[in-house]
């Protein structure tokens, strides 16, 4: 089974986001980088499928060339090779991003049975790139998957809707977008890290189409100074809290 997985390097945020003075980017000078949890699960799912069925996992990542570090981390858990699409600091809109990813996937020598992506990126959160890639590749797509089994070329996918789970089936080849909770991603082993150093990461250049959604600036939403009421501590706070529950009507 030949699997393509799309991953994106994003800053690892702490408890607050700090913007650059011009408001055009997050100040990442004090931040580390990683992947969205959705995408860590995507890579883990692909590696498990190849362990069970044979084949190989190819990673596709678009962004800054420094993202090679995050790509090597995923090669260390078992992906076989990677294609890094260097954006030269330009952030494409979702249409341009999907076009570039679909182009990269379809021009590989390998024909992929499955393309796995996260349901949405941690930073942009457009919820559309997987669907657009599927349309470009002429493949069916199942999104927001939290349970995945593949048997006889058919993928059975589960996704949560409220308190129930919907079950979808799709015949491969297909695009599947997944969510955190699909599996528990493994940690890289030391031999895995050694092997990852020798795996191939092809760097490609890309020119994007004119964006249709143009960012003017970023802002951090006002955190209403709620001026939290302190209820104190201990027995006195417990009594005060019960009064609050009565006041807002959750306790009668």
């Amino acid at each position, binding site marked *: 089974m030949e699997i393509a997985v799309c991953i994106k390097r994003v800053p690892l945020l702490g408890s607050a986001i700090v913007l650059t003075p011009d408001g055009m980017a997050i100040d990442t000078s004090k931040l580390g980088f990683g992947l969205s949890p959705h995408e860590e699960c995507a890579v883990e799912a692909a590696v498990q499928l190849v362990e069970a069925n044979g084949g190989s996992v190819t990673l596709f990542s678009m962004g800054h060339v420094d993202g090679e570090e995050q790509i090597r981390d995923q090669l260390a858990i078992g992906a076989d090779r990677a294609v890094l699409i260097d954006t030269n600091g330009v952030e494409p809109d979702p249409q341009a991003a999907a076009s570039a990813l679909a182009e990269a996937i379809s021009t590989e020598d390998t024909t992929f049975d499955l393309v796995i992506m996260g349901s949405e990126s*941690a930073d942009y959160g457009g919820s559309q790139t997987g669907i657009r890639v599927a349309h470009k590749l002429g493949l069916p797509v199942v999104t927001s998957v939290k349970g995945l089994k593949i048997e006889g070329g058919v993928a059975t996918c589960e996704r949560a809707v409220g308190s129930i789970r919907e079950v979808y089936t799709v015949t491969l080849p297909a695009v599947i977008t997944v969510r955190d909770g699909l599996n528990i991603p493994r940690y890289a082993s030391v031999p895995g890290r050694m092997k990852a150093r020798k795996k191939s990461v092809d760097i490609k250049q890309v020119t994007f189409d004119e964006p249709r959604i143009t960012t003017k600036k970023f802002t951090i939403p006002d955190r209403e100074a709620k001026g939290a009421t302190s209820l104190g501590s201990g027995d006195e706070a417990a009594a005060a*809290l019960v009064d609050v529950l009565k006041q807002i009507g959750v306790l009668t």
Partner: protein
Amino acid sequence: MILVYVDHDRGEIDPISLQAISAATALDPDVQAVIVGHGGKELAGEIAAYGATAIHAGHHVDLFDFTPRAHARAVHSLIEKNSPRAVLAGGTPRGNEVLSHVAALMDAPFASECVSIVLTGADRADIVRARWAGNMLEEAVVVAPVLIASVQAHSFTAVAAAAPLSLTEFEVPLSEGDVLVRVQDRVGSSAGGVGLAEAKVVVSGGRGMDGPDAFSMLEDIAGVLGGAVGCSRVVTSAGWRPHAEQVGQTGTKVAPDLYIACGISGATQHIAGCKSSKTLIAINTDAQAPIMGFADYVVVDNVHTFLPLLIEKLKAANQK
């Protein structure tokens, strides 16, 4: 005219879709709604009560439960027929999915998770959309003759504005590829507990719970208040609680009447999942923890000593 895709689950309307109708009404009083699948047309009265001047109910012999690309085909056919200036939907997994298909079919931009939309010209709109699940906002210009956008859940208030009922049924023009991916089965139910996403009260625990055992206290509190238990990502990563209970950017986003955060520091990814709660109470040993800045009421205490006192008082109050 603004067209709004209204999502429903077997005849139960998605409340975020109603928020999208109100967001559309602010742009243009001529708002039409499209609803697809089994149980949809029965909701026309409910949709008209929020101000939709015309309701288009799409059906097809192959459509019963949710079928994303077929729903997109229904929306797309109405765009071609009625030329709306904008198409909106609720920023839910399904709303975003259907509009992504519509945008892909039209090779048009799709601005998801908007908190503000202003139409500034025949093919331009100024939007503000949520990034990082709402922890950061993006001000952007979208160039498109038909703006396709979803509204972030709870960013707009659904306002009743009764319009006369005008219902048209139409057969969705489907091709084989439109029904390849559809719901084949539904499993599980909310029996045995209140669903996290719908719960009016969520009692959530974080790293400060120090292990799975202390969560029994949260179950007790949720039991008394008729709520659900939630947790932060640290807790599911450690295997203390199932992933289905995770509140946050990559878990479930909740908007209950009351959210009680026990031993949760308040990383941005967690706040993204609970900031729409009406009342937030935080219990934490650290008065400076980020969660305290989002809370309406704070208790500075250790959950292991404080929660037993609270449970005792709650049970006493409940027996009266």
